[in-house]
Structure formats: structure tokens, C-alpha cells
């Protein structure tokens, strides 16, 4: 039952020597708007902690930077918003040093899991909105690892190659319509571009929520890594023929197009004041989440 979360924790512990987990927690803590007034304890400073929280006297005594921890004033809600169309069942793009691409499904579960785990560790509640073109569904926010595991299982099961196509617009509209409380909204999608309608919905959502977007990059079908394997276009259900995938010029043109689209999307989201990061593989995912949280913190401070 706890398969997804166990995997996520073990992967995070691989990064433990880099203090990734602590850093992530710091970044996560830092994005919260309010802070409780009841002092809880002191802990070692990690990058991302607010400098205002450093207990200078205690630090001078113990010769290491210590920050004050307070009991949170109230519980926050982290709402995981995952697009679960069939395109999410396809392979994700290759990371900088990964040999084999992972499925976007695993990647979506992972990034949702890491964020959700941080929230759970922090005592916050985690909810889930997921859906495709046919139907959208909201799960009630809850706390605890078991609840998170259940949410991750829901996401994992919802994504199949035979399922309906993804529809981010419908999903965002569903969030607008159904979610009343103020949340930290983490949108996990694989859309390569933002339509005007989506932009409008996102603008509407930023007024209520703290919106973070993680986009999952697609596998380039012309990559030489996949040369020996058959590739099916999950949207159209047809094969991408091998003679097409060998062409170097096509590879270059596609790479240019994808880079252009990514840049365009990022610029559009910047205009909306929404931070967005692209995730390609599991290793890069942790870094991407960290950068997302950090960028969000800086964005808020301005």
C-alpha cells in the first residue's frame, strides 16, 4: 500500500548527503505566508530559511547557525492538481545524464509525492484534484502519510495509455469551481503551451491560491537513445515510423521548436506571476522542486 511513498522517501534519502531533504524542507517552510508565534525549538540553519528566523544569541553560543522554529499558526493546504490524460502515460524527456527515459506517470507521482511528503512532514494537509477531458475529481484534503499514499495511488491508476486525452483547461476550471479554501496549488501537467483560456483561469487562481506549476517534458521521438525501440504516439495511437526518427535535421528542428515553446510558456507564466519549472527525470525532479520553491519564495518577497 505504501509503495509510492516508500520509493519517494528512499529516493530522497539518496540525496540526504547533499542535504537535499533539509533544503527542501527549508524551502517549503519558507513559502508559508504566516508563521506561528509560539516558539517550538531551535534547529540548524539550512539554506532557504529566512534570515529573520536566525536566533543569533543561540547561534553564538553553539557556534553554529540555529533558527527558531515556531508552531505553525494554522494548517496549510497543499492541493496537488495533476492532469491525468493519456499523454501522461507516455515517456518523459531525457535528463542531463539519464540513459533511459522514465514514464511521465512515474514522474508525476514522484513530484506530487515529494511535495506532498514535505507538506505531511510539516503537518499540513494535502488534497488532490485530478482529471482528464472526460471527468475531473477532487479528493478531500487530509493529513498523514497514508492519506498521501492513497492520493498518489489514485494518480497512478488514473493515468493509462488507453484513457481519455488530457484537458488542463477543464481541470483548472474545476479547481476554480470547486475549491473554496486558500491553498498552495501545485499544478502538474505536460502541456507544452498555455492557451489564453488557461492563462485567464490561472490569473483567476493566483488571486486565491499560491500557484506553482511543474511541467513534465516530453520525450523527443527523434532521440538516438530510443533508436532500437518502437514508438507509439499515445495521442493518435499510430506508430512513429523509424525512418522518420533517424533524421538529424528533423531532430534539430524539433529541438528548436520544443525550446521555443518552453521559453514562450515560461514568459507567459512569468507575465502572470506564476513560477514554473520543467521536470525531465527523477534525479532532476528534486532539483526542479527545490528551484520551484525557491523561486516562489523570492517572487513573493518582491
Amino acid at each position, binding site marked *: 500500500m505504501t509503495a509510492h511513498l516508500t520509493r519517494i522517501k528512499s529516493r530522497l534519502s539518496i540525496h540526504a548527503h547533499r542535504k537535499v531533504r533539509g533544503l527542501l524542507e527549508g524551502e517549503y517552510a519558507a513559502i508559508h505566508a504566516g508563521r506561528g508565534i509560539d516558539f517550538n525549538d531551535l534547529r540548524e540553519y539550512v539554506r532557504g530559511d529566512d534570515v529573520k528566523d536566525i536566533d543569533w544569541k543561540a547561534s553564538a553560543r553553539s557556534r553554529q547557525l540555529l533558527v527558531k522554529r515556531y508552531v505553525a499558526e494554522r494548517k496549510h493546504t497543499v492541493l496537488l492538481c495533476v492532469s491525468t490524460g493519456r*499523454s501522461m502515460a507516455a515517456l518523459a524527456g531525457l535528463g542531463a545524464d539519464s540513459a533511459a527515459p522514465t514514464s511521465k506517470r512515474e514522474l508525476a507521482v514522484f513530484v506530487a509525492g515529494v511535495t506532498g511528503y514535505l507538506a505531511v512532514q510539516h503537518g499540513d494537509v494535502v488534497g488532490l484534484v485530478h482529471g482528464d477531458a472526460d471527468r475531473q475529481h477532487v479528493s478531500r484534503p487530509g493529513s498523514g502519510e497514508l492519506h498521501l499514499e492513497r492520493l498518489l495511488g489514485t494518480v497512478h491508476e488514473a493515468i493509462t495509455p488507453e484513457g481519455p486525452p488530457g484537458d488542463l483547461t477543464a481541470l483548472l476550471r474545476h479547481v476554480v469551481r470547486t475549491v473554496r479554501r486558500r491553498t498552495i496549488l501545485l499544478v502538474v501537467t505536460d502541456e507544452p503551451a498555455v492557451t489564453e483560456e488557461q492563462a485567464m483561469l490561472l490569473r483567476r487562481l493566483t488571486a486565491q491560491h499560491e500557484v506553482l506549476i511543474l511541467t513534465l517534458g516530453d520525450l523527443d521521438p527523434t532521440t538516438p537513445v530510443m533508436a532500437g525501440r*518502437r514508438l507509439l504516439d499515445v495521442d493518435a495511437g499510430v506508430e512513429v515510423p523509424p525512418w522518420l526518427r533517424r533524421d*538529424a535535421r528533423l531532430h534539430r528542428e524539433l529541438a528548436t521548436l520544443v525550446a521555443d515553446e518552453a521559453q514562450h510558456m515560461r514568459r507567459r507564466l512569468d507575465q502572470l506571476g506564476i513560477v514554473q519549472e520543467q521536470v525531465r527525470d527523477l534525479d532532476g525532479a528534486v532539483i526542479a522542486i527545490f528551484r520551484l520553491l525557491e523561486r516562489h519564495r523570492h517572487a513573493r518577497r518582491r
Partner: protein
Amino acid sequence: MWDSDSTAFRWPWLALGLAALVLVLLVLWLRPWRRPSRAGAAYVAHAARLRALPRYRTLVRRQVVLGTCLTVAALVACSGAVVLAGRLQQRQTMTQEDRTRDIVLCLDASGSMAEVDAHVLREFRTIISGLRGERVGLTIWSGAAISVFPLTDDYEYVIEQLSAAEKAFASGDVYSDDYAIFTAGTVLDWDVQSQMGDGLASCVQRFDHRDEERSRAIVLASDNEPIGTGIFSVPEAADYAREEKVVVHGIAAPKTAERPAAVQEFEAAVGATGGTFSLLGEDGSTRAVIDAIADLDAKPIKRPPLVQVLDRPRLGTWLLGVGLVGMALLWAAQGVLVVRDRRQESL
């Protein structure tokens, strides 16, 4: 020459079966009804972006053209192989109907007859081309008879021989080498020459297939001016010819007219066999003899139709060759395009 001519497969069922097999394999290969199997395949999303690229359209157009041409070439090669396997054959039949006329040219080779012989030979050569199935032989005689060539329907050979004989006689010079060589053997004894009776009897003996019902004719050219005595007298020889049912057409040399007895004897002998007689110089031609020969009753004999079956592998070989060469060229073109792309990439 050939009466009927038809082209068909030796093994039509094999050709049909192979053609059907090719069709079935084609359909199985294309499988238009089947969606690609999902086993062992990896999924990519948002591949529609790929289709929007100009390079994609170029590649697809190229692949469609090359693929279509390759398919056509392969089908041409297959059809060639099918035609070869079915073994295309041409069947020619010839109904044979030989006319059974045997004609022996029976020429007096004595010196006085040279010019007349040349004339007869020339006339005869012109009618050879009109003959079909008739057999012609040439015998010359003086004191003794020799066969220049026996009865044959090899007209090419006949014309060749007649020309040679005409050349030998036409010189008119009895003392020329040509004449001497050609008539060598006809005179055994200088005291016995120009024996028409012996000559006619010898010519009658030149006919073969005595048991068959054939029209037999002799064209006898002579001046009937014997020196010495032979074995057969002219009437005896004529009787012999009549017994053998051989029609003798006589052509007398112009000079014969000086000796009415000789002419009479000649005419009587010829008349006894039912043939025509003409005195050369009367009407100046041998036309009457030729006409008489044409009128000879030709008894057709039936022979089973000649059937010849010829393999015609040419069409199949051509189709196969064109198809294979086309495929090789297209593959080469494909390779050239790939190499060109690579070179452009590396630049």
C-alpha cells in the same frame, strides 16, 4: 507458314497460385485494418508537433514517393517471377499437306542440246518459286544417264543446282571446262551418244516410292539424234514410262525439225504417255510444258499437323529484370539521399 499460333501458360494454376500468394502477402504486410500492437512499444506524447515541422513533410513526401516506386518495382519483379514460374509457352501448329508431284528434268547433254537445255533450265527455275511440296530432280544423259540431284523439295538447293547447270550449258561452248566437268560421265563410249530411249528409261527409274499414288512427270528435252544403238529404243522406253504411269512432256530442239522422222518418233513416244510435245522454236517457249506440269493432278497426302511448343521466357525475364533493377536503383537513391543528408548535417 504457321497456321495457328497461341501463347499460354504451361502451368496456369501455378501462376494463379503465386499471384494469389503475392496478393495475400501484400494484404498481410499492409494490414490496413489493424492498429499497431502495443506490446513492446514505448509511448510518446505531443508527437503532433513533429508533424507540423517542414522537415517532416519533406521526409514524408520522399518516403511516400520512394515507397510507392519500390512497391511498384517489387510488384513488377513479382509478376515477372510469376510469369516465369507459370512457364509462358507459344504453341504453333502447322497443318501439313504435301502435294505429291514428282518432276524429273531429263536433259539431253549432248553438245547440240546445250542451248536448249539452258533455256529449259531457265524457264524451270522461274516456276520453282511457285511450287509447294513438289519434288524436283535433275538427270542428264547422253550415252549414259547421271543424276545431278535426286528428287527433292529443298528448293534452295534445287535453284542452286539449276543455276549451276544453266551456267554450264549457257556457255554454249561444248569444249569449255564448265561443260566438260558438268557433263562428265554421260559419255562412256564415243560411239554411243544421245540415246533418247536409254535416257528416258533411266529418268523413269529415278522415281522412288513406287508404291505410293503420286503424279509423276518427266520433262524430256532432246533432239532425238542418237549415235550408235542403246539398250532401249524410244518406243520401248515410252512403253516403260507408261507402265510406270509417268507422264513425259517432250521438248524438241529446233534443229529436230530438219528430221521429220525423229520428230514423229519423239511426238509419238510422248503422246503414248499422255504428255505434251513442243518443238522449240515453234512458239519460242517451253510454256506449254510448264502449263502441262501445273495441270498435273496433284494428290494431296495428309500428314499429322506439325506442332511445336516454344518456351517464351523473354517477357518474364524482362519484367523480373526491370523490377530488380528498379529496386536496386531506388535503394541506391535512398542511400544517396541519406548520405547527402548526413553530409549536410556535418557541414
